């Protein structure tokens, strides 16, 4: 187990390094000039050269990448001479837009994105697994068909369409909820939940459908296994048979996609955050994109990759908990 964990952590570091390298290449090698972006539109050639030197862009590429990596792990000094700035660990650089450290910007926004992702995930698990298990237990009935058609239809709706319709229906017409503004959970849990309810629903509708389809399939497979018959023969209540014996073994494939989805959503809810005006990482990313604020874009990309890789690792470790047949 410890050996396995060590190997996985090493692989994780390798993947992150590769992703950092690719991200770095995209931003510093492809035809885009970070110096020009940092310098602004009215920039003389002389000033541009200064900025280039200040940002270290006159250095060879491997040197820049090495500096960038050193910055992440130990912090680094940006620039030189009287303009030198100490960028503390973990240094992802400074935003061109407002000169704040990228790391601080990310950490500021993380609670919003995490609230959105985790809340939506809970909702889509409940909806998706509920619908999937119900459909599987009533296989080939009208309920099953209706649920599955509903699931395909819900998954086909683009999230910006559902979001706009929810805003229109629930906020503008019915006036049931306020227009979402983020409130910290610690201050006002109820306000936090009511404000996030619509964004959660919009995201959950999109994802729940996939989970309903997947869990229906694995439930049907699991319920046909001999150990289900054994459990029933022992006289276990049907609820226990379904939840403890059927659902538990059907969970493994669902856990895999769940890890990927949640990891991807933590820094990737760009569209939902923009539509609902939530100040999360996705919106930070979008804003940075519009103003070509490359350090921020790079930072978000790395953070997003980090979440995905860590979520995958967590899922693999959880397998052993859910499925006793899995050993490391």
């Amino acid at each position, binding site marked *: 187990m410890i050996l396995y964990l060590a190997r996985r952590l090493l692989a994780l570091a390798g993947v992150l390094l590769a992703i950092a390298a690719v991200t770095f290449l995209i931003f510093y090698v492809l035809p*885009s000039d970070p110096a020009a972006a940092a310098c602004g539109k009215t920039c003389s050639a002389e000033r541009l050269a200064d900025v280039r030197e200040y940002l270290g862009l006159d250095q060879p590429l491997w040197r820049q990448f090495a500096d960038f990596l050193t910055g992440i792990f130990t912090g680094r000094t940006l620039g030189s001479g009287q303009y030198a700035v100490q960028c503390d660990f973990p240094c992802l650089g400074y935003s061109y837009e407002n000169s704040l450290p990228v790391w601080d910007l990310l950490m500021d926004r993380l609670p919003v994105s995490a609230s959105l992702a985790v809340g939506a995930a809970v909702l889509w698990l409940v909806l998706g697994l509920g619908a999937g298990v119900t459909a599987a237990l009533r296989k080939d009935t009208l309920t099953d068909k209706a649920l599955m058609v509903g699931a395909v239809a819900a998954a086909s709706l683009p999230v910006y369409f559902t979001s706009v319709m929810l805003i229109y229906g629930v906020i503008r017409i019915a006036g049931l909820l306020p227009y979402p503004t983020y409130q910290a959970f610690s201050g006002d849990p109820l306000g936090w939940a009511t404000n996030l309810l619509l964004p959660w629903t919009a995201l959950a509708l999109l994802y729940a459908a996939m989970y309903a389809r997947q869990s229906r399939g694995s439930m049907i497979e699991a319920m046909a296994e001999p150990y289900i018959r054994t459990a029933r023969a022992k006289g276990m209540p049907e609820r226990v048979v379904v939840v403890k014996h059927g659902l538990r073994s059907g969970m493994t494939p669902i856990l895999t996609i769940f890890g990927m989805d949640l990891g991807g959503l933590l820094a990737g809810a760009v569209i939902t955050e923009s539509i609902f005006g939530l100040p999360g990482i996705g919106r930070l990313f979008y804003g940075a994109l519009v103003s070509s604020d490359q350090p921020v874009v790079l930072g978000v990309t790395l953070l997003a990759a980090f979440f995905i890789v860590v979520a995958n690792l967590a899922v693999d470790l959880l397998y052993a908990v859910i499925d006793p047949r899995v050993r490391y």
Partner: protein
Amino acid sequence: MTTTAPAAARDGSAAPATGSSPWQLARRELRRRPAVRVSLCVVVLLVLMAVTAPWLGALGGWSPEEYDKSAVDPYLGGQPLGSFGGIGPEHWLGVEPVTGRDLFARVVTGAQVSLLIAFAATAIVVVTGTAAGIAAGYFGGRTDAVLSRLMDLTMSFPSLIFMIAMLSVAKDVNRIVLMTAVIGVFGWPGVARVVRGQTLSLRHREYVDAARVGGSSSWRILTRDVLPGVCGPVIAYTTLLIPGMISTEAALSYLGVGVRPPTPSWGQMIAESVAYYETDPMYFLIPSVFLFLSVLAFTLLGDALRDILDPRGGRT
């Protein structure tokens, strides 16, 4: 039900003596599921619409980038004249607010752009994925290790964020080609995994061993013996990839990093119309409905194809 479909798919043409050919299975499935019949019709119509876009669009009498100031009301902030967003004999699906561009022409041209990108990206994904999957599964060893690591790595990339970042960095390139490439880059590991698994199970079948003993080259074995065997799952998987590609293209265009105006695409039309969803709902609804219908139709069709062609899928 019989499970000869993969066998039939493998030799590609003649049906075995017993059981049914994939075509017969497909026809039976169509008869059994009216939803699949409808979605097949929708898919055919959409593809026809995309292929004939320049001529079909011209039928309405407007080009997609042509302004029609007479169709909007300058005193009402450029609202379309007439009910339902200006739908009438002059403009079949109404007009855009402010500019008065014809929505029918734009939706039809948008279909061409959206489907072209989706299909081309799918083609890239399927060709690369199949090649990588077959190579990994058949050759095994170091080839497999390297390709599998590459698949894991690609799957660890936050794909939407990366696509957005890449598209926003590369400025002056043909957007359609660039989008196709960027979407294609992140899709191949899924196909490759399916193909790799299938190839592993085919690698030591008798007929493959026989071909090897008979002195066939690796290339011949791969293309003549293994490739037909993985076709069934690949076709099913491909059809299920297309809706994802359509939505991805729409999402990227929606975020403004996709196709550049004035070239229309559905995602971009929806992005432009979001601001008008209350004052001119038809403008918002029309591209949304087209996007929804195409994703739904391709998903339903892909589900049915998977039931028919994938040996492990659904059929009990």
